[in-house]
């Protein structure tokens, strides 16, 4: 029997759970952050953040510059530690597994948890085709020409780019416009069949038309993926996300979580004065 609140059953049920103002049931969370701190050398930039990321939904992380949004996001796929002298403490559980367990291979984490960056970054020496196919091939997900061609078409369709590039797959990925490049990067991430997609201000280098295309795309992808998006654009957060987490910078210079909840409530009835001030533009 299908129970509507059993979030293991359907993506729709998961979205409803994410959008409801009830506390998120633990089984609805893909990623669970417990008391996460992040540092660059001796400097703490993220302070004691605990947060659950709901499955099959879009979680927006908003907040002013310097509030640690991107760093927090980068902790979720272990990209934070790529920066020299950067480290994180606390516990991040991904489907019940401690991501920072010694036995966990960070490369494997990044295959399950994909990332899209602020600047579109297609590989400049690869064609559009290879940008999508090569990472999947390197990770042993596809073998042979035909399988690769199928994968490329499927991912480019999913990223709503296929019709624009199908006749020039051999051209360089960098020959595309900024918005197209960003969708190519999304297709590249999707080609690894990730479970979670982390997006770090994916639209901040794009014009409004391209931004709208990416937002539409995110809504379409929600059925199959869990998406976390960092944005400094509050309209964007309210348009696309199911849940919103608001971060701000404390007096010690580290970002902390002010409040988190379904997007509808955060934007209409925030519980914290800080959130209300930020959302209504009275941030000081």
């Amino acid at each position, binding site marked *: 029997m299908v129970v509507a609140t059993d979030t293991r059953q359907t993506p729709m049920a998961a979205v409803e759970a994410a959008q409801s103002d009830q506390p998120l049931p633990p089984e609805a969370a893909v990623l669970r952050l417990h008391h996460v701190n992040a540092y660059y050398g001796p400097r703490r930039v993220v302070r004691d953040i605990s947060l659950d990321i709901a499955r099959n939904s879009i979680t927006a992380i908003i907040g002013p510059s310097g509030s640690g949004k991107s760093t927090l996001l980068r902790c979720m*796929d272990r*990209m934070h530690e*790529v920066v020299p002298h950067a480290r994180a403490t606390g516990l991040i559980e991904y489907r019940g597994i401690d991501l920072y367990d010694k036995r966990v291979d960070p*490369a*494997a*984490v*990044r*295959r399950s948890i*994909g*990332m899209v*960056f602020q*600047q579109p*970054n*297609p*590989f*400049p*020496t*690869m*064609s559009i085709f*290879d940008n999508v196919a*090569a*990472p999947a091939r*390197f*990770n042993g997900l596809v073998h042979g020409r035909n399988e690769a061609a199928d994968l490329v078409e499927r991912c480019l369709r999913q990223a709503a780019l296929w019709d624009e590039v199908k006749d*020039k*797959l*051999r*051209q*360089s*990925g960098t*020959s595309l416009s900024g918005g197209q490049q960003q969708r190519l*990067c999304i297709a*590249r*991430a999707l080609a*690894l069949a990730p479970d979670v997609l982390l997006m770090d201000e994916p639209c901040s280098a794009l014009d409004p038309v391209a931004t709208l295309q990416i937002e539409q795309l995110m809504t379409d992808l929600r059925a199959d993926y869990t998406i976390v998006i960092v944005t400094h654009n509050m309209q964007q957060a309210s348009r696309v996300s199911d849940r919103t987490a608001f971060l701000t910078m404390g007096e010690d210079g580290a970002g902390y979580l002010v409040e988190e909840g379904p997007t509808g409530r955060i934007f209409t009835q925030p519980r914290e004065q800080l959130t209300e001030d930020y959302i209504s533009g009275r941030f000081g």
Partner: protein
Amino acid sequence: MAVEFSTLLKPTSRARRLKSDFVVVLAVAATLIAVIPLAAVSLYVISSGAGVVSLDFFTQDPPGDLSAAGGGIRNAIAGTLEMTALATAFAAPTGILIAIFDTEVGGRVATGTRLFIDVMAALPSIVVGIFVYSLVVVTQGHFSGFAGSVALAAIMLPVIVISTEEMLRLIPRPISEGARALGLRRWRTYLSVYIPTAMSGIFTGLLLAVSRAIGETAPLLFTSLGNNFFTTDINEPMQGMPLLIYRNALNSAFPAARDRAMGAALTLVVMVLAFNLLGRWLVARRRPGRNPGR
């Protein structure tokens, strides 16, 4: 205070224009100072060498007595090509791997290697020759083309390491992070993303190293020694073009020797130029098409 937009209409002051013109003149003069000797040498080599070069010049070996007319430089061309190719085969992979080690691993060992490479780059080439003499020639008991290759490789190595390191450092962070975020292994990231991205730069450094090695005389003096006969056997003493030029030019009192030296010099210059053009063309061709078509 309001901005004085009316100044836009005022002519630029005379002093300012003079200063600007002065700097332009300086820049042009500096360029000429650099280009004039280069052009003079090129013209001299072409005018003295062009009359010597013929098909026979490339297909015959020199006469036993270098004061005698006739003969060619076939043995020297073959020797130089073989030794340079072998030296590249030694130095290119080693140099690129050292550069990857220095940029990726870092730490104290890498600092040590980098210092060592810098010292190596500053070493006079004659010292490299003597070093390889004691290392290879003395050990083997005879001069050889192999020893020459090792000496040339030692000349090329620091050039390749330094230029490759520079190129790897220039890879934009979004590109390297993009590769890491896709869960690619480190070696895969290098092989398929970093090296191709930096390829044109690495290749330019490689060409620079080849061009440098191909014209070196000093490292060959004590290693490949020179050989008046044609050989491709790497274990025998081997003639190189710079050696041939050096020996014949020393005897330029004899018109035949002088002509042979100038002809060989012209051949060497054209060879280096051809290598460079070929390399650039190859690099340009490897990129995915920016123009339509599949």
